[in-house]
């Protein structure tokens, strides 16, 4: 691989990442719009304080979030460890589907 090709490959990753971020941002906006359409007050949802939850539910919430993050971090580790593999194989399967 030439030096220019290396840089181009990195810049291609940048474009993929920016496209992914833009896509997620759009999806969040679309989902909020769908919630509003359903009659859900999204602003009120956002203002809710997890501290108001009963302890058992708060615990469940923390566990759920911990699991979400653990899975996300595992995916990030996969992406890091497989850095030297070809680009298509460098991301977990569910990520490849998205990107």
């Amino acid at each position, binding site marked *: 691989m030439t030096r220019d090709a290396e840089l181009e490959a990195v810049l291609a990753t940048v474009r993929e990442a920016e496209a992914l971020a833009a896509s997620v941002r759009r999806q969040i906006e679309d989902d909020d719009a769908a*919630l509003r359409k359903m009659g859900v007050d999204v602003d009120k949802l956002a203002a809710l304080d997890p501290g108001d939850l009963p302890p058992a539910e708060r615990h469940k919430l923390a566990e759920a979030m911990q699991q979400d993050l653990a899975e996300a971090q595992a995916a990030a580790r996969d992406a890091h460890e497989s850095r030297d593999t070809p680009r298509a194989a460098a991301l977990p399967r569910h990520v490849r589907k998205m990107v």
Partner: protein
Amino acid sequence: MITGLGGIQISQLPQPGSPLLNLLFPFRKAQLEQEAQRCMESIAAGAQRIQEVGACLAVVGNAAAADQKMVTALNQLFQTMPWMGVPPISAENPALGIYKAMKYAQMAMERVSAETRPEIERNRMIGAAKDCLEVLKQVLVERSVRIDQVNQALKQLAVEMPSLAPRPPAGGATDPAMSPGDAPDTTAPTSGDPATSVPLPSDPATTDATTAAPTADTPTADAPTAGASAPSPLLGRDATRAQLMKVVDALKEVLRPLEDKLRQDMAMLTVINIKRQGVFSVFADLWKAQAGR
């Protein structure tokens, strides 16, 4: 009691058989979106930094490519003036090659002046050598500008690259035909005859100009000083191709972890978004079911 779901209490949502976590939708939504936002910000910052490093790499790459073109063009020029005897400039050390070529042009003028050729021919040859000297001075100035641009780009990047500090080659052979210290100050060309501003070597005939290496006192522009807080320009005016490539390699090293981090952020964001979508769709189903009741 938790309220706020569009005026409906959470307890009013379908309870039997529905997973408890679905009732935590508002909170999971907020947290997952917050996490997604963090990933997106990290991606934006990483992308920006990569583009900055990439831009710097492009400047260095352009400088190296311009050197290559310059060397090719000059060597072609020398081939049209074989009587000057200028050795081909090596792409590895263009500045030194140019200094040498200036010497040879100067020597050629001296030699031709002393030869018993028709005056018209001597004048033509001397004129050609002078023109060649002007070209050489000009390309040296242009090269200095390109090196300055590289240094400026590196400075703007404000990245620690101590390994790039120019180090004089240890025990480098001296070139009797040309000491870099003799190099004319190309940043401020003299208004007089350029040929006279280049000192002559002592014995050009015995010089092996093609194998000469830079001397230990190769001038560098503002070489870093110990204890200096602000990073000095990394490349000297006479930077070699090897030094330029060292900059490229160092920038690649800066790029590598940035790309790794970007890929990690992408993977994290994707998983977080999948979670977010899952939570959303389950909640939407529950909500619709409740609304239809």
